[in-house]
């Protein structure tokens, strides 16, 4: 049996020890070590979101989420890198032939980059390709990515093309040799995720290797691709806070079982301020996890049966993921606080959980803006335009 034949969750669980062992090195290298990337790739963990027709696993949310959770529990930066790498799901929005060519070149390709339209691109004279220039920050995993996305505004004669009052936008899927990585990832949290800036300069990308996932439907029939790209991202995100917060509680439990505080007679775990808080935190985390799965399953049943996802249900999916982030953030802060001074050092996983989950929580998906758009969608109020629609 090869590694890729394992169920993804089994594979992820089997790799957890290795992922944890690489965590410190990932922080030092400020990106996932190549060796670990290879093992994750071999285990099929970068193929979770890829269409089956392109050789991927096309995992249902109910299977995908626990995989991201397991990897994130082993190391948050690795979990983040794996989930971002699985934005290969967005290849489903690409012209099938172009997508085919990409996976023929690299099976189960790792994706990186950003759909934010921070570049500009103009059709070359024969109309077969765009010439794109741009720079995108926060491109997690760009050091090992096989394909890099970059959103751009389409120009004509150097001027943005306006459609329905808004600039026309596309996303280019670039190959690594077209892309320059700018080493910008000096951070406290998610340090091992290599989320540098990436840039292209006058890169020529065939029209077929560009897409409009913002508003056009995908080219693949699988139910996963009936979700909006925003929702795909929310499904990919969901396991992350669950795993990191669970890790923080694991660590605190171990510490509290062995540790006596200065001036205290019992172990930390016997202190009701600690044990009742641990139980309450775990109950909140279990609820957040169950909440994510309940709505993900409902979404899945809906798309599998061919029904449209209502805006409300799409909003509920996003809200469940945001709730998991909010709960997770609160839990890592509380767990860190309970742990006392020994958690200060760089080699303490607890402080890494704190830094990593708070850093991930800075993602624009969790901003006040996004929450407001989400709420307006939920209640059927008019929603101001944005790159991603809920």
């Amino acid at each position, binding site marked *: 049996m090869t590694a890729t034949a394992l169920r993804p969750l089994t594979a992820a669980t089997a790799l957890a020890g290795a992922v944890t062992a690489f965590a410190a090195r990932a922080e030092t290298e400020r990106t996932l070590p190549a060796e670990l990337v290879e093992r994750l790739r071999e285990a099929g963990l970068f193929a979770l979101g890829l269409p089956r027709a392109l050789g991927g696993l096309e995992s249902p949310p109910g299977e995908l989420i626990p995989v991201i959770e397991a990897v994130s529990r082993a190391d948050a930066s690795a979990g983040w890198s794996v989930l971002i790498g699985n934005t290969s799901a967005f290849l489903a929005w690409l012209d099938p032939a172009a997508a085919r060519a990409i996976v023929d070149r690299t099976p189960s390709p790792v994706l990186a980059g950003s759909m934010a339209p921070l570049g500009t691109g103009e059709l070359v004279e024969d109309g077969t390709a765009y010439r794109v220039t741009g720079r995108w*920050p*926060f491109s997690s995993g760009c050091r090992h990515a096989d394909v890099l996305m970059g959103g751009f505004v389409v120009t004509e004669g150097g001027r943005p093309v306006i459609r329905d009052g*808004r600039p026309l936008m596309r996303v280019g899927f670039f190959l690594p040799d077209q892309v320059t990585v700018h080493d*910008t990832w*000096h*951070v*406290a*949290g*998610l340090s091992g995720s290599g989320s540098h800036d990436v840039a292209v300069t006058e890169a020529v990308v065939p029209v077929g290797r560009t897409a409009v996932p913002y508003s056009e439907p995908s080219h693949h029939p699988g139910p996963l691709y009936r979700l909006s790209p925003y929702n795909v991202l929310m499904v990919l995100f969901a396991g992350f806070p669950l795993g990191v917060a669970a890790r923080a509680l694991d660590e605190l439990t171990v510490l509290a079982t062995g540790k006596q*505080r*200065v*001036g*205290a007679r019992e172990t930390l775990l016997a*202190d009701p*301020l*600690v044990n009742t808080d641990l139980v309450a935190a775990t109950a909140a985390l279990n609820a957040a996890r169950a909440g994510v799965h309940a709505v993900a399953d409902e979404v899945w049943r809906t798309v599998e049966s061919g029904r449209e996802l209502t805006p409300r249900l799409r909003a509920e999916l996003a809200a469940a993921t945001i709730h998991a982030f909010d709960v997770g*953030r609160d839990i890592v*802060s509380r767990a*860190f*606080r*309970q*742990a*006392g*001074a020994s*958690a*200060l*050092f*760089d*080699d303490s996983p607890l*402080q*890494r959980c*704190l*830094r990593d989950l*708070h*850093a991930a*929580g*800075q*993602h*624009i998906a*969790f*901003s*006040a*803006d996004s*929450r*407001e758009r989400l709420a307006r969608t939920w209640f059927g109020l008019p929603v*101001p*335009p*944005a790159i991603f629609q809920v």
Partner: protein
Amino acid sequence: MNNATGVAASPLDTARLVAVELDGRGAEIEQARGLPPDLVDRFRDSGLFGLALPRTLGGAECAPLTVVEVVEEIARADPSAGWTLLIGQGAGFLAWLDPATASEVVAHTPRPVVASSMAPAGRGEQTPDGYLLSGRWPFTSGCAHSDWLMAGFVVTRDGVPVTDESGRPVQRMAFVPSSEVTVVDTWRVAGLRGTGSHDVTVTGSLVPREFTADPFFEPARLPGPLYGASMFSFLMTMMAGFPLGVGRRALDEFHVAAHRRVKQPAGTSMAEEPVVQAAIVRCESRLRAARALVVESLGRLTEVVESTGHAEPAVRARLAASVLHAMETAREVVETALHSCGASSIYATHPLQRCFRDIHAAAQHVAFGQEALKRLGRIELGLPAPVFLV
């Protein structure tokens, strides 16, 4: 403390000048994992390291509130520098030494910087000439630039801990010149990185008995509101400005970000967002209330000590509770500011990022732990409690 024109500047004026000089040096301080020599010199030369040194020993012996305000100002400019400054006020502990011995200390090293590590992590074998001291103490902030170390130890005879009439091991603090102290480079952390809080060791130094004290149980040898309440009150007074300054800096950054960040596609600033408006009022009120309580509690303590020469545990407990509350409030305020300020604050060099890491690290100090909270609760409720720890 003299300004450019030779007129004595108040400590707070000096702090404001130094705060400006700290601007932009955060990354360097973190890189060095301790205060760079020129800043150590600046703190020394400007008298900022001598705020708590008794006047009879050549120090400023500032009013307690002045110490708080100076530390607040420096912590606002750079949290690690603020922590180094407050811990560097250990010269105040000389008030617990026999005045003749304390004079010897300042004769040997005028305006000394005294690092301290109070946990009884050393052992001092009784000899006719004093104590033969050995031990290793963690978390000794500023040890690399200190002139003296005050370190806790258990008294032994023939290697066996000496106990008092109630059977408890006898503990004292030893004052050791830094020439006898070895720094062990251990300070690899995410928070308060620039404080150089390494381990220190002493191996077989002979400490004359008069260079030791038991400040937990003995009153200070000098009068004055800084020393007259208790050793613990002295410590809480030194610390109080830290959370207030870091919290204030986080709100400074929140204000700046609220005006600078623009919401797309509306083009309005984040400051126009109701969620941001509500968050900033709440944060401001909470931090200001926490500060007002510190000022009130410290004022009460100062008044009581000035009029009676000492302070009851209940009054000391209120000061301690106000500083714990300031720390908890600052943590919440910093987290809210960080969450509200979006992805740009993810970079390690962003001041908010540093506020986040540093406030979380400082809150791990044992003075802010749950044992302290319970102790203060017992005193509030009129139950028996170890009052030497307030």
